[in-house]
C-alpha cells in the first residue's frame, strides 16, 4: 500500500517502496493558474533536497518547484511536454512530475501526512 506525503510548499510524494512519485498538489495548481510549460530534469539526475526539481510556467509567471527530498530521477512525466495542462486537470494523478529513487527514507520524517496537510491548508 502506498503512502502519500505532502509539504508546505504544496508538493506531494506518493511513496512506493524506495520510489516517490512527486508532483504539485491540487491547491498548488489552482494557485499557479493555467500551466503552459513544465521544465523537468533529465532522467538519471541526482537532486539534493531543496534543489530545483522543475520549473512550472503559467501564462504570467515561472515558478520553481524544489525537491522535497534527495534522490535520483528515474523517470519524468514526458506527457507533460505535449499536454502541460494535465497539471491543472489532474495534479495529483496524471499530472505528476518525476519519480525519484529516495536517497534516504529518513528524509520522509519531516513531511506532512494527508491530515496534517489538510489542516495546513485551512490556515492559509
Amino acid at each position: 500500500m502506498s503512502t502519500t506525503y505532502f509539504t508546505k510548499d504544496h508538493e506531494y510524494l506518493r511513496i512506493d517502496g524506495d520510489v516517490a512519485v512527486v508532483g504539485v498538489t491540487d491547491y498548488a495548481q489552482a494557485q499557479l493558474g493555467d500551466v503552459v510549460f513544465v521544465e523537468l530534469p533529465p532522467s538519471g539526475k541526482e537532486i539534493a533536497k531543496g534543489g530545483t526539481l522543475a520549473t512550472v510556467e503559467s501564462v504570467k509567471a515561472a515558478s520553481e518547484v524544489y525537491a522535497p527530498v534527495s534522490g535520483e530521477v528515474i523517470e519524468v512525466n514526458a506527457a507533460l511536454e505535449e499536454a502541460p495542462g494535465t497539471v491543472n486537470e489532474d495534479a495529483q494523478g496524471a499530472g505528476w512530475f518525476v519519480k525519484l529513487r529516495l536517497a534516504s527514507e529518513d528524509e520522509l520524517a519531516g513531511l506532512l501526512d494527508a491530515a496534517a496537510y489538510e489542516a495546513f491548508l485551512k490556515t492559509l
Partner: protein
Amino acid sequence: MDQLVSLRKTPLYDFHRRLGARMTAFAGYELPLHYERGLVAEHLHTRAHAGLFDVSHMGQAIVAGPGAARLLETLAPADLLGLRAQRTRYTQLLNDEGGILDDLMVTRLPGRDERFFLVVNAATKAQDFALIEQKLPELSLHAQERRALLALQGPASAAALAPLSPEVETLGFMDWRAFDYEGAGVYVTRSGYTGEDGFEISLPADIAERFAERLLENPEVAPIGLGARDSLRLEAGVCLYGHDIDSSTDPVEAELTFTIGRRRRVEGGFPGFDRIARALREGPTRRRVGLLPQDKAPVREGAPLLAADGAVVGRVTSGGFSPSLQRPIAMGYVAANHVESRKPLFTDLRGRRVELAIAALPFVPHRYVRQNKETA
C-alpha cells in the same frame, strides 16, 4: 498575503469578490487577476466574444483653459491642435531627454471651451497630474476621482453596449461620445488595449456596478482579469508602461513614431525634441521588436538578448505565453544594427540556449472598426 501598505479598492471591488475573483495588488490597488474560469479561458473569450475589464485604477482628468491644445503640445508630441472634438489620440508625456514619463489617451471634448479628457496610467497618475499643474499653471486640471473606468473588448462589444447606448454602434475607432445613463454622464471611446474592437467607458463610481451588471446580463460578456488584459495586450503588440516604455525610452525607438504628429516632427516644441529629431533623421540606436522564442518555454521580462558570440544586444521587456497562438511570445529592445543584420538572437533559459526570431508586431492582427476614412 501580507500587505505592507493598504491597497485601494475600486468601486467594483464587491462585484469582483462576488464573481469569485482572485485578487492581486497592482499599482496600489486590489484588482482581479482572474475569475473562476482562469486566465486562458478569459483571454480566449475576449477574442471570440466580449470581455469586461475594471480599469478604474487608471487616472482620469479634465484639463481646460484657453490655449489648452497648444499648451498640452508642450508636454506631448501628438498633434492636439489638429484633434477634432470628440476624437481621441494616443500620446506620451515626455521628459527633457525625450524619455516617456507616461503614455495616455487624450480626447478633445465638445463645447466652446478648450477642454481635454485625459486617461493615464495608475502608477503614474499623481506625478502626471502634478507635472501638468506645474508646467501649465494657466490650465485647470480636475482629476475625476469619482469616476470608474470599464473596458469592454472583443467582437461582440458593440452589440453588447448598444442596448445601453444605441449611438455607440456609429462610432469609429478613437471616436468619443458622452451619453446619459440613468441621468448620469457616461463617456465612451471606441478604443482599448487588446487589439480587438471595443470601448473604454468612463462613468460615475456610484453607477459602475449597476452598469457592469447590466453588461454581464448579455451571455456574450464575461468579466476578465488583469492577467488576460496583459496577455491580450502582448499579443496586440501594445506597450505596458514601466516595462516596454519608461523614462529611459523614447517614442522613436519604442516604434511609436506614428503617434508623433507630422507637423510636430518638423516644428518640435515638445520635450526632448532634439533627441527625437535625431532619431527620426538617423534612425534609433535600438528598436522595440516582437520576439518569437524557438522553444516551448516562455522567455520573460529582463532576459538578456545575445548575439551568437554572446555579446548582449538587447533585453526582453515583456514575455509570456500567447493563448491565441499557443506558443511563447515576447517583446524587447534590440540594437538597431543587429535588427537590420537579421542575425539570430539567443537567450539563456535556466542554462539552456534558446533562439528567438524577430517578428512583426502585432502577433495577433488588430480588429479595430473604422467608420470614417480618417486615421488615428
